[in-house]
């Protein structure tokens, strides 16, 4: 049986020129709630973070969940592994995609314009071919007449 990975959530604050652990919770929502409380209650705090800490199986990992810095609070996106897991869970296998019915988020997202140089190269090549064909055509017509 493998050892269970324990995840705790540390509320850390920047005070006296260094990061200090303020409190520790086993519940992410409570940790974020407490971080928000600190931000609101103690205006002198420069920065507050909630860091998820995972220990077990000889591994130690930590990643940010919540950040408050320079008067701005942000909830950090889940780490890549979590994103992958969530994406896998959210997308059923063999899901057929209806391209006509794009989601609002997809519609709002600008399409990525990669490889623009390919487009312009093709356009230039096409123009050269057309102009070349026209010149040859005119030359043939002149030679006939």
């Amino acid at each position, binding site marked *: 049986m493998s050892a269970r990975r324990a995840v705790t959530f540390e509320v850390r604050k920047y005070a006296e020129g260094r990061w200090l*652990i*303020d*409190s*520790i*919770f*086993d*519940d992410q929502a*409570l940790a974020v*709630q*407490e971080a928000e*409380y600190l931000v*609101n*209650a*103690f*205006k002198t705090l420069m920065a507050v973070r909630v860091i998820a800490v995972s220990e077990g199986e000889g591994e130690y990992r930590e990643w940010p969940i919540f950040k408050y810095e320079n008067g701005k609070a942000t909830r950090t996106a889940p780490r890549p592994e979590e994103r992958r897991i969530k994406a896998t869970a959210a997308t059923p296998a063999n899901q057929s995609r209806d391209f006509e019915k794009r989601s609002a988020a997809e519609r709002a997202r600008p399409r990525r314009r990669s490889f623009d140089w390919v487009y312009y190269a093709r356009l230039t090549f096409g123009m050269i071919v057309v102009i070349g064909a026209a010149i040859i055509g005119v030359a043939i017509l002149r030679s006939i007449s």
Partner: protein
Amino acid sequence: MQPLDRDKRLTMRALHHWRAILGSRAFPRSVDVDPASLGDDWHNCLLIGLKTPLERSHFVHVGCNLCHPAGTVFTGRPLADCLEHTVLREATSYIARVLDRQVPIGVGGSIAQGDKAFLYRSILMPLSDNAGAIDAIFGAASFREVCCSDEEYPS
């Protein structure tokens, strides 16, 4: 500190009381824990006087809501006297972590008592009367009976 809405979670209210009596010290003093300002929450609070080794530590106060069996007086009794599978036992099971990390630690979970199941949430906070070593612990816990499908922790 600006006034904030009273937190709905008992453990967080206890933590905010701990912060309020902290002042500029590293840890609050045990005499600064104020039952009056905790109000009814005091019935879900506990105070532990620490000794070395930890097994010799004893309860200074156990709120009546945490006493199991009901009516048991824990004041002055060692930690080992609380029964297995009780909220009090679970809420005092991580004192060593608090001593190690020297910060408040909140823990929740579930316990089974016979055919009943309970969800609990607890918090332990360090206290020190000599502004140095932690010599006492202030804690709070709330719990409620649940059926199998319940998932939320008590407030």
